[in-house]
């Protein structure tokens, strides 16, 4: 599954790990994250993420 990087702070969303701090289960693809989800590091919205090459 693809990893995505926050363009504001550089934090990387790894779908294998999910984001327990916001109740996101491991193995959740980035595209399935709710619109209310934000970068757990800096609070940037989902739209500020770019797919990691």
């Amino acid at each position, binding site marked *: 599954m693809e990893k995505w990087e926050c363009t*504001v702070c550089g934090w990387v969303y790894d779908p294998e790990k999910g984001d327990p701090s916001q109740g996101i289960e491991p193995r959740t693809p980035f595209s399935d994250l709710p619109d209310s989800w934000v970068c757990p590091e*800096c*609070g940037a919205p989902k739209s500020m993420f770019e797919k990691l*090459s």
Partner: protein
Amino acid sequence: MRYAIVGGGIAGVTAARRLRALAPKAEILIFEQEPQLYYLRPGLIDLLAGEKKPAELTPFDRNWYESHGISFRPSAQVVELDPGRHTLTLSGGEKMSYAGLILATGADAFRPPVPGASLPGTLTLRSLQDALEIRERAQGARAALVLGGGWLGLETARALRAWKLEVTVVERAPWLLPRQLDRAGGEVLATQLNKLGIEVITGTSCQELRGDGEVREAILTGGRRLPVQLVVIAAGIRPRLGLARQAGLAVNRGVVVDDWLATSAEGVYACGDVAEWQGKVFGIVPAAREQGQIAAANVVEPGSARYRGTVVKNRLKVAGVELVCLGDTQPEGGPGEEHRYASPQEGVYRKLVLRGGKLVGAIVMGDLSGLGEVERLISAGEEVGGELKRLLTGRLG
């Protein structure tokens, strides 16, 4: 073909990744003086507050670098750069040639010349090691002083509050965040920080730090004395210019780069906190990322990518205080037309700056509703027109 990057922070690592994409067969090396792999510097605040572990700030592990063919060498100090011969030398004596070089050496924390600032217990926050050391010191301290009411100073104050310390922030300017906030906004912010138990003293500097072996007391201008066991200096950054100077590159406040992020030496580019473009050293992550990508593109194909600046965006990472500053906020007035909305009791303050009918800057505090729209308008450069009142009051209107 070998590309060398000096510095493994966000600018250097972003450049390495772009190089990898553009030049699949090239050898890519990153030399980093710190002993760790690349980590998220903004996350050091969370590390200091005890909310994150170092591993959580390290987005790429050893395997990642290996699988991407990027050689990341920690604890590696580049001591000499010879742009004429296209060679660099490491502190151990190892010498190598390069086809292209990217300087991403970053910046050091600035230590103003305050008497007593070298006493143990007086620290700056820049590296992972710094954060761990401050955290350790905080365990045995009752009261801490933060010198500097900029973004880092305020976030440091919040992190130290997490350890139940008495925290005082001293800012030399008449209000907090003087480069982005205006006076009215600074006052609203100070009140919000007071509610979190952070004392804010503006228009004041620290004259001297005293202590017998360890810092114990701060003397402020005006004569006030504060008992302290920990002092964190957050007085801004200074680009690390040693290598650039040694190599004979043109430097000013930072390494001077053109619109292609080329330095004065052929084949050498600079990006991130060390680079000075059009007189500006941005010192923020989004600029470091953009510049890293552009420097990489131009190393591979000179003239292929042009840098046009980064819209400055800062968001305060202090739980309970929402604050975002975007673009040109005219802290002390200026040519732009200013519109304000304030509700200080609720900690709400909003200022929009327009030029020729277009939004060029904004301060949004307390209520972030409509922030996305404000950001979009600043980036797009469209005229604002009838939406102004709504933008100004957010959902409160």
